């Protein structure tokens, strides 16, 4: 990879431009009608570059990035599946790109149908009874879900429910969303086998509990086998069960959160339904509800009918339409039979890698996993080669690093999620490289500790950057 970090302004040459415009025959006029205060004192400093300058500049910059389109990206808890390009083609259709949210409804019935179809498909995939597609991202969906929980209790005149229970293995967003929503967060422990400790949960459940948030499978990639009992216990004390949809991928087509007893859930369309990841959006975090909460979804809503007890507004318009459209395109492209295979293939890929590597990486909980699993660093820790070092060394071999130091249950967490879109050959290549790194850690630890060696940016001083960040040039 070529190192390239120029600004386009550095390429600028006086008088150079991208194309030659013919004389328009009108001569030059100045905008004297504009008040002086609004007129420019000097010409704008735009880069003066030719078309090849521009194309090379951005192409070189793009090659400095690593994405799913570049290589394998086993980032745990993030479901970095390949996003089919057909999603982009559908989302670029002019009939969709040229609509405006303030157009009369009668002129955008096609878009209404997109909303309706996607929310229907999400209902049938998750087993919930209705969906709102309004939230603009997963975190927004999570907040909306908790606001729905609060709204539900208030509607029932139940003002004493201020606690939300969160397992110690939860995604950090769970306690954060609950706290932002004004709840008190109470942690429940995991058992040694990585699942929620039901005995630890029981004494926490009383009339002050608004609900419990869970991810199933949990962040260790393990199915919460006690989910039925947990749902029963939470419901018996009058609480609601919340499903964090971050780990939905392995369940798709196999089991449904709605059938497990979840009352509210949010989905991250960018994970399970192949819409663009990261970069601050645009995202989409649809929220589903069970029959119990019927009629309380946010407004505006023109595809689910009247929301009699609506919680109010959480967005100006109906979500990020382009993202919703991509998710629908993905579901339709796969079709019912193939959607059913998603979860099983994601699970198979993860278990395959786990089994092939567990002799050289520490596997703290050895049982069948779902879409992801967690190693606690290298098995042989005698050379003090850490999870960070292994992750950095992977970059040298052209793989993106897995999620590291999460979940917090172990000191050297290395969380691997291959997704269903990778071939056996890619998984084998990754396994080979991980085994090579384990060998290198034993034979030449200093080389691993100083990795990466082949990337344009080597190992930045993260500590120094966090302690003394330089925020201004």
């Amino acid at each position, binding site marked *: 990879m070529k190192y390239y970090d120029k600004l386009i302004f550095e390429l600028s040459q006086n008088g150079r431009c991208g194309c030659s415009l013919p004389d328009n025959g009108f001569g030059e006029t100045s905008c004297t009608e504009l008040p002086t205060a609004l007129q420019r004192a000097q010409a704008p400093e735009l880069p003066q570059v030719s078309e090849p300058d521009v194309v090379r500049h951005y192409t070189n910059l793009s090659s400095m990035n690593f994405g799913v389109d570049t290589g394998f990206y086993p980032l745990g808890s993030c479901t970095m599946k390949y996003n089919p390009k057909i999603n982009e083609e559908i989302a670029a259709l002019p009939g969709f790109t040229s609509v405006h949210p303030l157009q009369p409804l009668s002129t955008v019935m096609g878009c209404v149908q997109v909303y309706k179809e996607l929310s229907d498909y999400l209902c049938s995939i998750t087993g919930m009874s209705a969906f709102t597609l309004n939230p603009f991202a997963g975190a927004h969906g999570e907040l909306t879900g908790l606001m729905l929980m609060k709204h539900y209790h208030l509607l029932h005149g139940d003002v004493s429910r201020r606690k939300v229970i969160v397992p110690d293995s939860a995604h950090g967003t769970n306690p954060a969303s609950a706290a932002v929503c004004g709840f008190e967060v109470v942690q429940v422990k995991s058992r040694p086998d990585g699942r929620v400790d039901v005995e630890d949960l029981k004494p926490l459940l009383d009339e002050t509990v608004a609900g419990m948030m869970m991810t199933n499978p949990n962040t260790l990639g393990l199915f919460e086998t006690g989910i039925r009992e947990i749902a029963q216990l939470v419901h018996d004390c009058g609480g609601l069960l919340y499903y964090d949809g971050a780990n939905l991928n392995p369940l798709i087509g196999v089991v449904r959160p709605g059938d497990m007893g979840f009352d509210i859930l949010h989905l991250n369309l960018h994970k399970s339904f192949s819409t663009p990841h990261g970069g601050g959006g645009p995202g989409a975090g649809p929220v589903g509800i069970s029959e119990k909460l019927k009629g309380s979804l946010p407004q505006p809503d023109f595809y689910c009918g009247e929301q009699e007890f609506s919680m109010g507004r959480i967005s100006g318009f109906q979500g990020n339409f382009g993202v919703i459209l991509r998710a629908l395109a993905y579901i339709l492209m796969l079709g019912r039979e193939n959607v059913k295979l998603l979860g099983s293939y994601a699970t198979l890929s993860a278990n395959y890698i786990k089994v092939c590597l567990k002799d050289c990486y520490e596997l703290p909980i050895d049982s069948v996993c779902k879409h992801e699993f967690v190693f606690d660093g290298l098995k042989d820790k005698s050379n003090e080669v850490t999870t960070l070092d292994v992750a950095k060394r992977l970059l040298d071999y052209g793989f993106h690093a897995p999620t590291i*130091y999460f979940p*917090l249950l172990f*000191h050297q967490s290395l969380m691997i999620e291959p997704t269903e879109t990778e071939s056996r050959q890619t998984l084998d290549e990754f396994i080979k490289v991980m085994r090579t790194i384990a060998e290198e850690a034993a034979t030449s630890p200093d080389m691993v500790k100083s990795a990466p060696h082949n990337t344009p940016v080597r190992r930045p001083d*993260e*500590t120094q950057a*966090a*302690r003394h960040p330089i925020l201004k040039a």
Partner: protein
Amino acid sequence: MAKLIEGLKYSESHEWVKVEGEIALIGITDYAQHALGNITYVDMPSEDDEVFAGEEFGAVESTKIASDLFSPVSGVVTEVNSALEDAPELINEDAYANWIIKVKMSDPSELETLLDPAAYEAICK
């Protein structure tokens, strides 16, 4: 193996307490600093703030993680270690020489519920 110091009291949440009369010096253990990795920020209370045994009084952030600090004893904060504001790495260098807060204890009997070095070492295994 993480360092332990005789004569200090330890909490299950990895804080240490050194008693000087009615004042308790509170810091985090060597085991904790090792597990956290390079510490980048220490969030401390203000002087005269009240702290309660078992409750959060601040947080430490490292390049890996942000972790809450729990006070092993109840009382009033008499001093915070302002050197940590600019040099949080002092805790990595010597976790026991760099206390985080000093607390004037309201109930010294709480010390009896804390762990001795051997008992603390056992929970770190």
